[in-house]
C-alpha cells in the first residue's frame, strides 16, 4: 500500500501582467510566507527539503537553481531545482516523502515573464538549432500548425475554440487572483487580429507574473497540521519526441499517456464520472479541447460538443478551468501547473466563493510546457 501524502498549505501572489514593484525573489518570498503561515510550519526548523522550479533562460541566469534557496527559507538545507513545470516539481517532492525519510517538503514555481523583453527570441532558442531555428519565425507558428491539424482531424471549429476563450475569461471575472478576466464574445475572438492562422490574438493566453509555494507532508504530519489535507491520489508525466518533424500534430499523445499512468494509480476507470473538477492546460484555446480528449473525458473529436453543450461550464457536468485557466489568469510558464494545482486545492477545500464547483471531491490538474515542448504532467487530488 502506497503511503499517503497531502498538500497542507498553499501560498500565492496575485497573477498580473506586470509586477514592477517586486523582484522575482520577493515574489517567491511573498508566496512562501503565505504558504508557511497557512501550513503552520517554520521553514528553518520544520521543512526537510525544498524543490524549486526554474528555466535558466526564462529566469535570466545561468545556473538559476543557485538563486533559489534564500527566498524559500532553504539556505543550508536540502534543495533541488527542476527545469520543467511546477507539477514535475510537485511529483518530485511527493516522491521524496514516499521514501519515508522526509516528512515535510516545500515546492515552488514563479513566473516573471514581464522581465523577458525578447520573449519570442527566448522561445525560439528552445527550437532545434540546425533544423528549425534558421527559419527564425515567431514560435506561435507551432501552435498554428497544431491547431490547423487538430481542427482538420476532428472537425472541431474555430468557433468552438473561441467559446473556450469566452468561458475561461468569464470564469476569471470571479477569480480575484486572475489578471485577465473579461466579458467577451465569440465574434471578439474570431475578429481579433490573426497571429498564425487559424490562431488569433485572443486564442493565445497572455504572459503573466506570479508565484506559488505549496507545503507537502506525510499522512501522520498532515493530519496534525491541517483539518483540510488535500491528498495526492495519482500522478503521471510523459514527454513525446521533441522533433517537430516526427511528433504527432493532431493530438496530445504525451497527455494521453500521462493520464493513463495517473488514472491507474488513482484507480480511476471512468474519468468523466469520477472527476469533479478539472484544471488543464489552455495556453492556446484549442489546447483545452485537445487536452479534454487526451485526458479521456470524451472521444477524439467530441470536445467541441462539450463546450457547445455547456458541459465544461462551472455549473456543468464537468467544470473545466473554473479559475479562468491560462487564458483568464495568464500564461505563467514554469508556474502554469502551479496555478492549476492551486485552483484544484482551493476548489476541493470549498474556498473559492462564486466560482465554487459543487460537491468537488476529486480534481485533476494538468500542465503542458508550451511551444515547442511535448511534455505533459498530471496530478489527481482528493479531499
Amino acid at each position, binding site marked *: 500500500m502506497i503511503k499517503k501524502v497531502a498538500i497542507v498549505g498553499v501560498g500565492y501572489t496575485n497573477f498580473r501582467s506586470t509586477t514592477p514593484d517586486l523582484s522575482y525573489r520577493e515574489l517567491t518570498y511573498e508566496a512562501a510566507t503565505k504558504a508557511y503561515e497557512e501550513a503552520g510550519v517554520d521553514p528553518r526548523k520544520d521543512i526537510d527539503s525544498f524543490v524549486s522550479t526554474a528555466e535558466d533562460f526564462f529566469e535570466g541566469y545561468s545556473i538559476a537553481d543557485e538563486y533559489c534557496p534564500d527566498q524559500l527559507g532553504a539556505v543550508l538545507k536540502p534543495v533541488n531545482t527542476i527545469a520543467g513545470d511546477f507539477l514535475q516539481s510537485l511529483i518530485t517532492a511527493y516522491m521524496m516523502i514516499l521514501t519515508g525519510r522526509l516528512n515535510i517538503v516545500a515546492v515552488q514555481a514563479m513566473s516573471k515573464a514581464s522581465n523577458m523583453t525578447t520573449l519570442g527570441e527566448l522561445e*525560439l532558442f528552445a527550437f532545434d538549432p540546425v533544423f528549425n531555428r534558421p*527559419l527564425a*519565425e*515567431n514560435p506561435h507558428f507551432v501552435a498554428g500548425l497544431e*491547431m490547423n491539424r487538430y481542427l482538420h482531424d476532428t472537425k472541431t471549429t474555430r468557433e468552438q475554440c473561441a467559446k473556450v476563450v469566452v468561458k475561461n475569461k468569464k470564469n476569471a471575472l470571479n477569480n480575484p487572483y486572475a489578471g485577465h478576466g473579461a466579458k467577451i464574445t465569440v465574434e471578439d475572438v474570431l475578429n481579433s487580429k490573426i497571429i498564425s*492562422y487559424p490562431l488569433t490574438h485572443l486564442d493565445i493566453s497572455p504572459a503573466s507574473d506570479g508565484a506559488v509555494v505549496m507545503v507537502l507532508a506525510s499522512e501522520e504530519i498532515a493530519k496534525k497540521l491541517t483539518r483540510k489535507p488535500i491528498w495526492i491520489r495519482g500522478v503521471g508525466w510523459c514527454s513525446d519526441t521533441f522533433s517537430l518533424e*516526427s511528433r504527432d500534430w493532431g493530438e496530445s499523445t504525451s497527455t494521453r499517456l500521462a493520464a493513463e499512468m495517473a488514472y491507474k494509480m488513482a484507480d480511476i476507470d471512468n474519468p468523466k464520472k469520477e472527476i469533479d473538477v478539472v484544471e488543464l492546460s489552455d495556453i492556446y484555446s484549442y489546447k483545452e479541447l485537445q487536452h479534454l480528449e487526451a485526458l479521456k473525458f470524451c472521444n477524439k473529436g467530441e470536445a467541441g460538443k462539450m463546450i457547445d453543450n455547456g458541459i465544461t461550464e462551472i455549473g456543468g457536468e464537468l467544470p473545466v478551468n473554473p479559475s479562468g485557466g491560462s487564458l483568464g489568469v495568464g500564461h505563467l510558464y514554469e508556474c502554469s501547473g502551479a496555478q492549476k494545482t492551486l485552483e484544484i486545492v482551493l476548489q476541493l477545500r470549498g474556498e473559492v466563493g462564486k466560482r465554487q464547483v459543487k460537491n468537488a471531491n476529486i480534481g485533476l490538474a494538468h500542465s503542458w510546457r508550451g511551444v515547442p515542448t511535448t511534455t505533459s504532467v498530471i496530478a489527481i487530488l482528493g479531499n
Partner: protein
Amino acid sequence: MGITEKINRNIDITSWKGKIPVNYIYTAGIAGEKFFREIKDNAKIVGTKCEKCEVTYVPPKIYCERCFARLENYIDVGTKGTIHTFTILHENLDGTKKEEPTIIAVVKIDGTDGGLIHWLGEIDPKDVKIGMHIKAVFKSKEKREGSILDIKYFKPI
C-alpha cells in the same frame, strides 16, 4: 504579506537592462552531417530506416525512437511530399506585423514517416490545403552552404 513597506509610486521604480550575448557552435552530428552534405552537394534529401520498426526518419537519426536500435541505412527519399498541416504567420519574432505573411508547413516526405518544417512558396495563402502535393525548391549549387535554408521553400506540383 511578507513585507511591510511597499513601493507605491511607479515613478520610484527603477530597473536594469541586462543582455545575454549567447554565441554557440552547434554540430549537426553524424546523421545531420550526412543530411546537410547531401543537400549541399547533390540537392538530395536523405533519411535513415529502421528495418525492424519499418520506420523511415527524415531528418535522419542514428537511433530509432521506437526500438532504440542503431540506424546506419541511409536512403535517398526524393524531394516530394504532402502538406500534413500548415499555418499562415503574420507576426515577426518581436511581435511586429510582417509585411507579407509567411506560410509554414509540416511537409511529410513521400514514403517516409518524417518530414521537414519549411516555408511554402509560389502559392497564394488562400489556395493552400492540407494534403496538397509539393516538392522542394533548392537554391542554386553555388549558393548552397549546407543549411536547411539551402531549400528555399516547397512549392505545389
